[in-house]
């Protein structure tokens, strides 16, 4: 492929010396329209041409990404395009195939005629590049785009309604509203606010006691205290850790054919929960995840954090190994740039970014930063790694070298005795089974394999029991020796992360993103447009230190994106929508901030507060903006249906985790055990039918264990738990900034008919009866307080009573067996509980 490219380019030179043998007649006709450079031309040029004739690479001296370059032409000195004369422009001849000896681009499909027509029109209309483009994008780190400008502390606006302003957030929000002559929505009622704060911060509804504590004197200050208190609870990390896991494409298997489990990966999940609960400064959180192995004060914890790079899907049997290597690096570069910087750098893999000042060179310079990382594996099987200093790991290796022959010797002793025992005929196993054990594993028939599997334990017990004491002593002696060695050098903690076993070689830019067509080597570098100043990538030590350099540059108050991106995310998870709606894209086609001054004020305040996420929550949640009700004037809705000005608190459906956890909390079955290997909640066998190994992939945990919070549920890429999947769980193959919210019939089926709901309704019924007895009035009252944090209205109470009576009649009518009046009551209550869990108000809190 590369050969062909070079050939084509040399022909370019030859042809340029001759005259054009053809006019415009055979070319596709120009388009009959006025063209827009950015919208119509730039995507074609950057997609098709800039890879070889752009900022990063100029094959044969030709540069098409700015007007002077295109007018000057390549080494031949003949212009690539002549403004006003597309028929005479070489660019058009080459791309249209009018000259069979030279065709551009040299690989791939010809450009469609419509695109050539557009290019012709553009040239005929003067070949104007847009201002931003002709300003030589990416050059000199200057771009006028808002998010690349330094964060400057914005002045807090003077409030005209001083009463409403509890903190600077309110001043910014109010300023925008007042500019329109609008007023913020009224304050939410204490009950509404209470439920909102609990669900938002810890993802669980308040208990009855907790409700009472606040509601007897619900002052704004009491709510402030509540926020501080909830931030100290472990549930905070479990709720907000899940947001982070969405962002970093966390899942516990690799996808693809084997969908193998990532060993020890759950430690990363625990790391996230712990970090949030400790209020680890966000800049430190970044450093640990990107370069925890390179930090001077590295520890087991920081190594676990670097699991970040390894969380994505992985094909253990790729079609093309070289390409696969870059797919893995791409996953890391994409995720890093989107999560920490809100930049879609991944778009520059095959060509310069079509909209942002990011070049292909920027992309591969970022690839170079991660190019030292290797995935520890044994063939297709992934390995986790022991954590330790170089010396510790060397001692560990030495220990294991000593242990290996001892272990082998134990195995030999056992094996020798086993074969002699089996051959002696003393075994009490079935003859066929005995024969199966005696056959070498590779030569066993299917039947024998089954026998061995079936009688394995039995055989081991039998053989061990028959072992002469001398052999047992020998084995014991060896085991003691191994034990002593392990005491002296204990097993270190293991975790799932990538390592840099050796320093990386040169990283090449890839034409069109294909590993088969490497271009020039690029050094590790951060995107040029942001490199002010360019961080110095040091000479390497044990690792390349490239990631640490990058991490320090990101986790830096000078970086214009980092703080803006994270405060926007926190805002989004509180309000349902960010100040920048496209939370993973702060670039040109991302959305502009609705409150730019507020965003900047928050970003600089956040950094001043030591990058403390908890302080940020506290600030947001003690504002009156957060405490507004969801009502608002119809006129506002008409003018601002997306609530961009924040005239009210928006409606958002709870995430599936909060729905499931709330149900468990209300039914009284929530198991608050934290951390550790994941749980596998029961799923119906039918849900496994789409998998090639339906019987093997899902060994459900016991119900009590499975009733832990959903963040501890096993996320298997090829078998997402149906309840999670159907209720809009995030995409696990890419960073996910925001969940979709849909209302579908399968969701209704899951929540109305599913086994989980049926069981929890049963437990909820039992709980209610246990707490208040069988009086319907009291039961209804308590059910409402537990699920919705409020008493029922008179009308609701009547509806419920009416329903319960009719249900009881129906039960009695339908079954002759039911004569126990209490049973009939329970059955009716069970239905009531099921309905409570399905109420709109339950999943769409006010």
């Amino acid at each position, binding site marked *: 492929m590369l050969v062909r490219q070079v050939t084509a380019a040399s022909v370019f030179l030859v042809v340029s010396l001759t005259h054009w043998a053809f006019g415009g007649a055979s070319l596709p006709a120009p388009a009959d329209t006025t063209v827009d450079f950015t919208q119509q031309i730039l995507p074609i040029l950057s997609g098709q041409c800039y890879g070889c004739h752009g900022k990063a690479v100029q094959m044969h001296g030709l540069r098409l990404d700015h007007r002077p370059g295109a007018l000057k032409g390549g080494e031949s000195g003949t212009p690539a395009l002549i403004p006003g004369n597309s028929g005479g422009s070489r660019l058009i001849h080459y791309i249209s195939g009018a000259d069979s000896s030279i065709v551009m681009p040299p690989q791939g*499909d010809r450009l469609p005629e419509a695109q050539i027509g557009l290019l012709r029109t553009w040239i005929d209309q003067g070949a104007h590049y847009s201002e931003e483009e002709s300003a030589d994008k990416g050059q000199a780190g200057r771009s006028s785009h808002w998010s690349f400008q330094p964060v400057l502390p914005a002045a807090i606006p003077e409030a005209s309604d001083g009463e409403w302003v509890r903190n600077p957030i309110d001043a910014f929000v109010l300023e925008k509203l007042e500019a329109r002559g609008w007023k913020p929505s009224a304050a939410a009622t204490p009950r509404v606010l209470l439920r909102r704060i609990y669900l938002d911060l810890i993802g669980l509804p308040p208990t009855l006691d907790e409700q009472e504590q606040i509601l007897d004197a619900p002052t704004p200050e009491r709510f402030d205290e509540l926020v501080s208190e909830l931030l100290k609870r472990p549930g905070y990390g479990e709720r907000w850790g899940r947001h982070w896991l969405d962002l970093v494409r966390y899942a516990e298997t690799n*996808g*693809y*054919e084997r*969908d193998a489990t990532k060993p020890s990966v759950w430690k990363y999940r625990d790391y996230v929960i712990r970090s949030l609960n400790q209020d680890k400064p966000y800049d430190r959180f970044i450093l640990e995840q990107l370069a925890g192995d390179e930090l001077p004060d590295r520890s087991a914890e920081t190594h676990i954090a670097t699991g970040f790079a390894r969380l994505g*899907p992985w*094909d253990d*049997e*790729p*079609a093309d190994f070289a390409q696969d290597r870059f797919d893995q690096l791409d996953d890391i570069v*994409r995720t890093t740039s989107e999560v920490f910087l809100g930049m879609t750098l*991944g*778009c520059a893999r095959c060509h310069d970014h079509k*909209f942002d000042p990011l070049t292909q060179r920027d992309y591969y310079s970022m690839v170079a930063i991660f190019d030292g990382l290797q995935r520890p594996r044994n063939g297709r099987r992934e390995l986790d790694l022991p954590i330790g200093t170089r010396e510790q790991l060397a001692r560990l290796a030495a220990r294991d070298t000593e242990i290996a022959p001892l272990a082998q010797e134990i195995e030999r002793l056992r094996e020798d005795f086993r074969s002699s025992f089996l051959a002696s005929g003393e075994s009490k196993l079935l003859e066929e089974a005995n024969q199966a054990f005696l056959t070498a594993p590779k030569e066993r028939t299917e039947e024998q394999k089954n026998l061995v599997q079936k009688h394995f334990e039995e055989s081991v017990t039998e053989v061990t029991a028959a072992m002469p004491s001398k052999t047992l002593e020998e084995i014991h002696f060896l085991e003691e020796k191994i034990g002593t060695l392990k005491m002296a050098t204990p097993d270190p903690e293991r975790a799932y992360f990538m390592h840099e076993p050796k320093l990386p070689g040169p990283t090449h830019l890839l034409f069109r993103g294909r590993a088969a067509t490497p271009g020039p080597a690029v050094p590790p570098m951060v995107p040029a447009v942001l490199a002010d100043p360019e961080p110095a990538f040091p000479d390497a030590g044990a690792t390349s230190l490239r990631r640490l350099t990058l991490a320090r540059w990101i986790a830096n108050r000078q970086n214009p994106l980092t703080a803006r991106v994270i405060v926007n995310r926190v805002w989004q998870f509180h309000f349902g929508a960010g100040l920048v709606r496209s939370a993973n*894209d702060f670039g040109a086609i991302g959305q502009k901030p609705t409150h730019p001054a507020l965003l900047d004020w928050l970003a600089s305040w956040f950094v001043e507060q030591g990058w403390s996420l908890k302080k940020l929550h506290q600030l947001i949640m003690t504002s009156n903006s957060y405490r507004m009700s*969801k009502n608002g004037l119809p006129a506002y*809705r*008409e003018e601002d*249906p*997306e609530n961009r000005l924040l005239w009210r608190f928006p*409606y958002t459906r709870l995430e599936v985790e909060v729905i499931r956890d709330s149900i468990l909390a209300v039914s009284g079955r929530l198991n608050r055990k934290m951390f550790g290997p994941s749980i596998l909640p029961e799923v119906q066998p039918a*849900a496994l*039918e*789409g*998998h*090639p190994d339906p019987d093997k992939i899902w060994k459900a945990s016991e119900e009590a264990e499975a009733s832990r919070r959903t963040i501890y549920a096993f996320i298997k890429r*090829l078998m997402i738990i149906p309840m999670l999947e*159907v209720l*809009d*769980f995030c*995409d*696990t*193959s*890419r960073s996910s900034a925001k969940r*979709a*919210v*849909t*209302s*579908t*019939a*399968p*969701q*209704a*089926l*899951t929540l*109305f*008919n599913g*086994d989980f709901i*049926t069981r929890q309704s049963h437990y909820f019924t039992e709980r209610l009866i246990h707490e208040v007895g069988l009086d319907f009035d009291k039961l209804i009252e308590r059910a409402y307080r537990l699920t919705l944090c409020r008493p029922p209205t008179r009308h*609701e109470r009547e*509806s419920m009573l009416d329903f319960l009576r009719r*249900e009881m009649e*129906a*039960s009695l009518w339908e079954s002759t067996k039911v004569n126990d009046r209490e049973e009939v009551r329970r059955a009716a209550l069970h*239905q*009531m509980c099921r*309905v409570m869990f399905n*109420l*709109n108000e339950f999943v*769409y809190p006010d």
Partner: protein
Amino acid sequence: MSQESKRYRPNHTPCGRTRREFLWEVGGGFAGLALIDLLSSDGFFFPSAQASSTRKMPAALLSPKPSHFPAKAKHVIFFFMNGGPSHIDLFDPKPALTKHDGQPYQGELSVGSNNRPIGYLMQSPFPFKKHGQSGLEISSIYPHLSRHADDLCVVRSLYTDTAAHASGVMQMNTGSVVIGKPSLGSWLSYGLGTQSEDLPSFVVMTDPRGGPIGGSASWSAGFMPAAYQGTLFRSRGSPLLDLATPDNVSERRQRHSLDLLNRLNQEHLSSREQESELAARIYSYELAYRMQTSAAEVVDLDKEDEKTKDMYGLNDNLTNDFGRKCLIAHRLVEKGVRFVQLYSGGGHGPETWDGHVDCITNHKLHGYETDQPMAALITDLKRSGLWDETLVIWGGEFGRTPTSEGVGKPGRDHNWYGFTMWMAGAGVKGGQAIGATDELGFKAIEDPYHVSDFHATILHLMGLDHKNLTYFYHGLQERLTGQRGSLIQKALA
């Protein structure tokens, strides 16, 4: 549509109300509610549609959408021969292979996947015959299907990017060997919406022996909302997850509970009238309730007459399963389902079309299992008039090698350089074979078509331009065909 309305009475809810009446009761005054079966909360995926002059309603994810240009086909039925069927034993006769049978392969292609043993060239033991007026050649594996030879457009020159099952099945379904992309059926649901709101728009039926390798990645909606993903549909018992009313709850009490829920939700909504999301969620429960009836009806084949059961092979143990699925596929398409995918073969090894050890016995079995049911479905589609609006596709993730796997053994290995798929039905020029592999059947040499070309053609027949069917995600306009894909013009009628 007129046919459909003749065939089906208005859908009554079991408590005797028509849907319209129901909507009037629960939705009182919600203009356009019938359209908002499935809503996107933020209007990001579609611009908001103006539902009334006073307020905006977010557009429905699955409401019918116009095609880019008039469509030839409204539905797709995809027979997926999981494991990689051998084109040279089915649709691509190779006399030269007979001539060179038993000789070593001396070409330049690397044969053998995963270091499997490489044997000699192996002729097909299945005789080919010309069929129909067109004289299309089909092997003896598919005698029933051969009766429809004049309808098939056999494409003999497909190629793909991978020789591995997982990535191959994924590419055939999602266009990419990389995980996380939406599947063909999702793209169609996204692009066209559905005509059948009380059934899923994209239905997948797997083999009772297991799912394909890669599992749900092949019918995933990838980065699109889950509403577009394929729904696993079981051909027996309860076809959908959680479709059945819980044990110990009678239908009457189910309805009681649902009525209570609706009443309470309605009351809640009355002070929040503008919140269309809340209205949509109320509607989703009624839709689910109707789905309980409609989906269960689709798999209830007891009332079919004996003749139909015989035609589909329901009375033969080997064809019963695929026959049921084919008969259900017909019913689904009849009810407006957009995309139905039927898997033949599942789990591992010989339980799929993956004939490594003994391709001959393997293909005899899987060929027999699918032949009569597929032929019956085509006959039935013609009878019901749906043939003119249905596109039928057959194929797997790749083909198989002309060499045997190991000397003297009757297995064949994976072949991704060249293989066969066919399409038939609406908009397809039948009775022809297009493209060709080399004389041994190894590599596509004449009119080679990449999987993306095949996908582009399917979308085209459904009225969609694959270059304009895009979904904005992470800064890119994503397409099913990526940066590739051109129409297989010769296949078009």
